[in-house]
């Protein structure tokens, strides 16, 4: 049988950074292929290529071929993909809340009736054929086995039903041949998810191929026909579901071997001196919600926080620093910390390097000097000089401190006066780090310190973290999506899944243990 879609030797790099390296697999009509992999493994880049998204062409296109129904196709835009019969259901809903279910399903493909006015004034004046729209929408929904009233507006629909409406919209397109589902069950409850999976099975039984992206390994095992695993842009496994199991998938997802000598902090011993105690913390950070986090940080250690995106690992530091509303109890050096007050954690001598470098970490239109000393100036009122009623910013004393940091962290710049926005990502990250360190913190929270920066800068930053931890005794809590990075520098690694701590492992624990904690297969509180 001829394959419906063949990704043939796909290669893609973003400014020298290889994200897809010779990915090659096929999908048959009616087949459900699960696409698995850690964040950054290249799944979304592959889908962006399939849909001809602008990010791909803007960054120099890709190498390799996409062969659809035996022909090499050149997909330039999502519209091209749609025309070929490739549909996608996104993680976030693409539904108009004020329109009925039927109108959403038929959006921009409405059944129309010509009339005298439309003959003169143009197609825009054709009337909507509402009965027919409702009928056809109801037909699509019933093909999915769903009983949803097509005349209800979407804003009155339970969240769990919206996903079905999206699927109905796709299968209502008469030419649909391939459906891509990006973590479709993330917002569904367990029973809804089950119905949803049954519904996908139905779609596949109609001969439509499905690419199914999910982090839930149980779903993958029960639904998919075959599993394709990407890791660091390479295809590491393409197997029938019968020929594999959850453990194997999990291990292959994170499976990079790490030399034990590169883990610098194995088996350091600490006194049970708790510097920070987090109890039942819950942070309402959109997209990264945590529900019930309890963690103790020992003085002098480097604690890693890992886990998959969307499970709440980054919300912990954001909650403690008051960036998002949070509930729970946090004590610092035995004293309760009122983290809901803006600046409380900073005033107490903690420091924070945010994962969102450009959005939170920097004032892009200001100088390196101001950026670096800002926190210290604000919180500890350093680098100021009095002039009458004003406490003026003292550029001279700031520049001295800044020059020191520039040298120490090897920041490539023209000098303290250069605007931060002009620096490369790695150097910007170093500025953020310097800003936190100039305050001389007792404990430092670092989120995703190496995201989107080059390897050289990555190494400098990680080494520096280890160095300040050893030499200055600064306790470090480091959050990262890159497990191996955590394993190289941390003493312990807490894995966050579904908003809670799934478990804490030493850096030299086997790969498969990490993988299973991450995919929520072990110890989950649920």
């Amino acid at each position, binding site marked *: 049988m001829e394959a419906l879609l063949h990704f043939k030797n796909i290669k893609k790099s973003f400014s020298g950074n290889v994200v897809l390296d010779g990915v090659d697999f096929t999908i048959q009509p009616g087949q459900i292929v699960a696409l698995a992999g850690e964040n950054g493994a290249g799944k979304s880049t592959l889908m962006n290529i399939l849909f001809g998204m602008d990010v791909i062409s803007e960054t120099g296109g890709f190498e390799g071929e996409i062969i659809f129904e035996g022909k090499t196709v050149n997909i330039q835009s*999502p*519209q091209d993909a*749609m025309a070929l019969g490739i549909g996608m259901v996104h993680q976030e809903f*693409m*539904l*108009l*809340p*004020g*329109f009925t279910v039927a*109108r959403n399903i038929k*959006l*921009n493909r*409405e059944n*129309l009736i010509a009339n005298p*006015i*439309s003959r003169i004034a143009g*197609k*825009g*004046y*054709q*009337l*909507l054929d509402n009965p027919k729209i409702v009928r056809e929408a109801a037909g699509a929904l019933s093909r999915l086995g769903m009983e949803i009233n097509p005349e209800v507006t979407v804003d009155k629909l339970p*969240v*769990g039903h919206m996903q079905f409406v999206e699927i109905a919209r796709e299968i209502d397109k008469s030419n649909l041949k391939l459906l891509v589902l990006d973590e479709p069950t993330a*917002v569904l*409850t367990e029973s809804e998810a089950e119905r949803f999976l049954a519904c996908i099975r139905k779609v596949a039984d109609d001969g439509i191929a499905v690419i199914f992206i999910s982090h839930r390994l149980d779903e993958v095992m029960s639904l998919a026909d075959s599993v394709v695993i990407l890791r660091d842009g390479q295809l590491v496994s393409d197997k029938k579901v019968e020929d594999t199991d959850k453990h194997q998938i999990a291990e292959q997802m994170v499976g990079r071997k790490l030399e034990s000598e590169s883990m610098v902090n194995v088996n350091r011993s600490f006194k049970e001196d708790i510097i920070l105690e987090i109890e039942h913390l819950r942070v*309402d950070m*959109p997209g990264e*919600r945590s529900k019930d986090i309890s963690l103790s940080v020992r003085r002098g250690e480097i604690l890693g926080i890992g886990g998959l995106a969307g499970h709440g690992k980054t919300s912990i530091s954001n909650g403690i620093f008051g960036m998002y509303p949070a509930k729970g109890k946090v004590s610092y050096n035995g004293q309760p910390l009122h983290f809901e007050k803006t600046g409380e954690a900073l005033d107490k001598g903690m420091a924070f390097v945010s994962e969102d470098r450009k959005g939170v970490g920097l004032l892009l239109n200001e100088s390196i000097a101001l950026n670096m000393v800002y926190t210290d100036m604000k919180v500890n009122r350093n680098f100021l000089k009095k002039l009458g009623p004003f406490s003026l910013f003292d550029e001279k004393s700031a520049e001295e401190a800044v020059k020191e940091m520039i040298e120490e962290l090897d920041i490539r710049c023209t000098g303290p006066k250069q605007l931060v926005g002009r620096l490369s990502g790695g150097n910007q990250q170093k500025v953020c780090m310097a800003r936190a360190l100039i305050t001389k913190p007792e404990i430092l929270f670092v989120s995703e310190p190496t995201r989107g920066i080059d390897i050289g800068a990555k190494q400098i930053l990680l080494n520096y973290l280890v160095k300040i931890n050893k030499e200055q005794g600064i306790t470090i809590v480091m959050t990262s999506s890159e497990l191996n990075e955590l394993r190289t520098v941390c003493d312990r690694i807490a894995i966050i899944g579904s908003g809670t701590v799934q478990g804490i492992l030493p850096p030299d624990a086997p790969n498969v243990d990490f993988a299973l904690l991450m995919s929520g297969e072990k110890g989950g509180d649920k």
Partner: protein
Amino acid sequence: MMSGEKTNRVGVFLKRQLVNNAVTILFFFICIAGIILANQPMSYIIGEISSRLFRNLILILALLVPVWAGMGMNFSIVLGAMAAQIGIIVSTNFSMSGIACLAVSFLVSIPLSLVFGNLTGRLFNQTKGQEMITGMILGFFAKGIYDLVFMFLCGPVIPVKNQALLLTNGIGLTTPINLDGATKSALNKIWMVSLDKAVYAVLILFLLFQAALFLRRFLLKKEEAKGKKPWGLLIALLALAVFHVACVSSETFLFALRFTDVPVATGILIAVVCVYITFLSKTKLGSDINAVGQSMPIAVSMGIPADKIRIVAIMISTLLAALGQLVFIQDIGNFTTYTAHENVGTFSIAALLVGGASIKKANIGHAILGALLFHTMFIISPLAGKNLFNNAQLGEYFRVFVCYAVIAVALALHAWKSVMAKKISEDPAEEEKHE
């Protein structure tokens, strides 16, 4: 238990209605209080309100389509008003008169308003999210250009045939520009009917329309139709009955109605605009406009050309505004050349908001109710001020204040609501319900 729950639900419903329509309800009471304070004969008040309703309604209706498109209140209908004024200046220049003058004015204003609308739409696409402030500033800017053309270029640069239009020194147009006797109210004068007859006619037509709908449903024997009660028919009957009783029982009321003449042709024109807007809402174009209004990114991802749709929405609005200003000017019989367009945007928007519309939602009902309430306030507040404080000026300032305040409050409420909505959507309560 059940009934308790029910009254509670009714209570919640009433409370929500009260909160959502606070501006309208407040205005209703201001109007009632004003009418009592103004102490004017009913015939005067009804006459004034009726003539202002016919004069202003199309301008208010012109605002609806951009609201659907999510662009908020279209402050740039000022440009449509300018197009109409240019139309009148052109036709007056060629010494036209009567209905022909109005027709030519409208013909001239069509391409102008479409071009203005198109350019405005393009500008709005550059300033997404800030359409209202852009529209307002654009109105001021356009006024500058308009003044430059008609105050300084007409005469020396642009030849003017009709010397009566020019100032004595030959530079710039005179102000105000008067329509001649045959043109003034030419549209209104086609057919005048006293208000009582007009209301009877409208109510009877409405009843017939509802009856026809009911019959059609009955004859088609649609399944779903059977369950529905013929509310429309009942309302139509009730309205007719109430009106009839009011007319029969109150001499002064009937006298006031008989005393007031309404322009049927203008009324028909307004009806045509209403029908057009209703029709538009049921077409593909209307659907696209609504889709863009609800979410531009989603509309675009579904292949709807949002930018183009937005431009079309503004063009429709500007064209209707031109028509509206033309009706307005023919009703008055003259216009101050350089300022007649100035308050068109503000007053129409305030009226629409008073009728219960918001930045996101507006319909024909809001426009009519708003026009009634707003213009009632407009007529009576100087009179009430005079009676209350012996100072008519006070009432005049009051109505200007109310006009601005209504817009400020509506904008602030809307902005506040959307900030709150954002907060709620980020609230995890929704998710919790699920688990």
